[in-house]
């Protein structure tokens, strides 16, 4: 569960200050599937990095599962990321020349799990994303969709509070993109996984039950999506 109050983030760019976030407040409950939308420069990347504990806000409060993140130091943030956040990136960010299984095991390695438990949990996570038979393939032996599934398995392997996806279909063709959205929806519906999608793509956002729109560092709308796109529906241009 996320509670954010008056988040601001100011970057120093040379002599001028850039206000990437201008007081954003919201709450995301456990088990929600939320899309954070906005054009580039709206502050959604900054918001994502704060939600994902990659960065701390300049001011404001951010609580993740009751933990006040805004005052945490670097190593505490790293630990929180390892335990509570599962990242999915546009470019998959898998380690090259490293098997799918080992890629998925990576967060567990840093979290200090034993070798045996790591492998067991990584295998399970790969099965969950439908890649139980691809454990020993390196990323360059997998298709884009399969690579993103490995990345999702890696995000799930720590049983995180939040699955945080940054443009997860951005590097995929539309058919594969739909399959990936299907996977997110099933993880949310069947597994009760909290999912936050950060995107500029309306089609992707409309898969979520709630859509938060950002503009100029402020939340301009926060609505329940009464009629989310059903998993597997092909992309239609509006």
């Amino acid at each position, binding site marked *: 569960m996320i509670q954010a109050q008056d988040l601001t983030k100011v970057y120093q760019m040379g002599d001028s200050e850039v206000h990437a976030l201008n007081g954003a407040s919201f709450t995301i409950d456990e088990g929600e599937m939320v899309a954070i939308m906005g054009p580039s420069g709206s502050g959604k990347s900054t918001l994502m990095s704060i939600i994902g504990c990659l960065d701390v806000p300049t001011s404001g409060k951010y609580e993740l599962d009751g933990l006040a993140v805004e005052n945490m130091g670097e*190593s505490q943030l790293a*630990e929180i990321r*390892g335990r509570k*956040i599962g990242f999915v990136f546009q470019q998959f*960010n898998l380690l090259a*020349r*490293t098997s799918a299984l080992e890629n998925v095991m990576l967060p567990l*390695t840093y979290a200090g799990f034993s070798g045996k438990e790591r492998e067991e949990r990584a295998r399970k996570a790969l099965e969950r994303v439908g890649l139980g038979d691809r454990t020993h393939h390196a990323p360059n032996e997998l298709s884009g969709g399969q690579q993103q599934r490995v990345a999702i398995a890696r995000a799930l392997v720590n049983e995180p509070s939040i699955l945080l996806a940054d443009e997860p279909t951005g590097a995929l063709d539309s058919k594969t993109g739909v399959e990936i959205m299907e996977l997110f929806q099933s993880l949310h519906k069947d597994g009760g996984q909290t999912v936050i999608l950060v995107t500029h793509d309306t089609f992707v956002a409309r898969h979520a039950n709630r859509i938060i729109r950002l503009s100029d560092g402020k939340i301009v709308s926060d609505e329940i999506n009464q009629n989310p796109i059903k998993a597997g529906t092909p992309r239609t241009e509006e």
Partner: protein
Amino acid sequence: MLFSENLKIALRALRANKMRSMLTILGIVIGVATVVALLSIGEGATASITDQIQSGGSNLLTISPGRQEARFPGAGGGYRQTSYLYYSDYQLLKSALAESVSEIVPVYQSAYTVKFGDESLNTNVTGVLEAHKEIRSFEMSDGRFINDGDNKSQALVAVLGNTVAQDMFGSLSPIGKTIAINGVRFEVIGVLESKGASLGSPDDVVFIPIETGYNKLFGETATYNGKKTVNSILVSVMDTEGMDTVSAQIEFMLRRSHELKTSDALDFNIMSQADTLETLNSVTQTLTIFLGAIAGISLLVGGIGIMNIMLVSVTERTKEIGLRKAVGATKNQILTQFLIETVTLSLLGGIIGILLGVGIAYFFTVTGLISSVITADSILMAFFFALAIGMFFGIYPALRAASLHPMVALRYE
């Protein structure tokens, strides 16, 4: 996170760029190999010199004239001998020390042109007594050595060192041939066994009876104030324990005969084999350290090469570092990972370098150039030096990697 996992990551990263990794460690390989080879060869040279000197007899004292003064003080104008040892010194010592020394001989040596037919060369002509052979443990390869009869009769006979015999006569037997030393004709009566060349050139020498020398060859140059001079006096002491006593006796007697006051510095030197050994060892040691230091510089350069490549690697892998941080790697874990990678590189270089260095040392031994001695010390030193290089030059790139902001690193293109 376990060390073995870091090692696995490091090896994978190094394998990913095989060529680059190999070129990177080349500097360390060369540096370590040079250090190991040089130390081994230095050690071997020291051992062989020690051996050689000890084979010359550990009970030998060498007295030589000692005080030399600058001819033109300060301006590097060369030296003029201002103190001499006299033939009378030898006679004095011989009669006084008859009890405690087994042999005592004078030596007068000077460089001359030696001719045989068209062959001509410059060599040291040394005037000696019969006992010289015993003291220096010479072995004859052919003929006989100078004897007392030759000295008494001032015979014009010569014994050739092995090199001189080879150079002048080649495969011919020199025995019975006549050579000209500074125009004076001598009959060759013997050739010495080679002493082996490593300390000066003990084989490049011609021996003649010292009496013959004084009367028929050396002339005025061998006298000072009307007294016959010698280059050195060799004393073979009966037992090694008596060395110090004999040495003190010689000092006392020579002081008196040279009319030195107690406050005056000695105008002669008394060197034992142990002294010579010490001097030579300190020379070889200095040389070894000096050469080792030069090799050390190449290690340093190698280290800089590693640091350079690691910095490139950190930049190339910025995204990977961002990802690792995103999935929970702490600053320390990233630091450790890159440090281990650098240390792995330098240790790999170190190990290959040690093998190569041992190989080179072995090669020198097998081909008979220099018998090298490979010591565990030198190998351990090279190993830990490589380790230290890895640590030292790895820390900066690793810190750079560890302090990358995860968000910035993830977005790096």
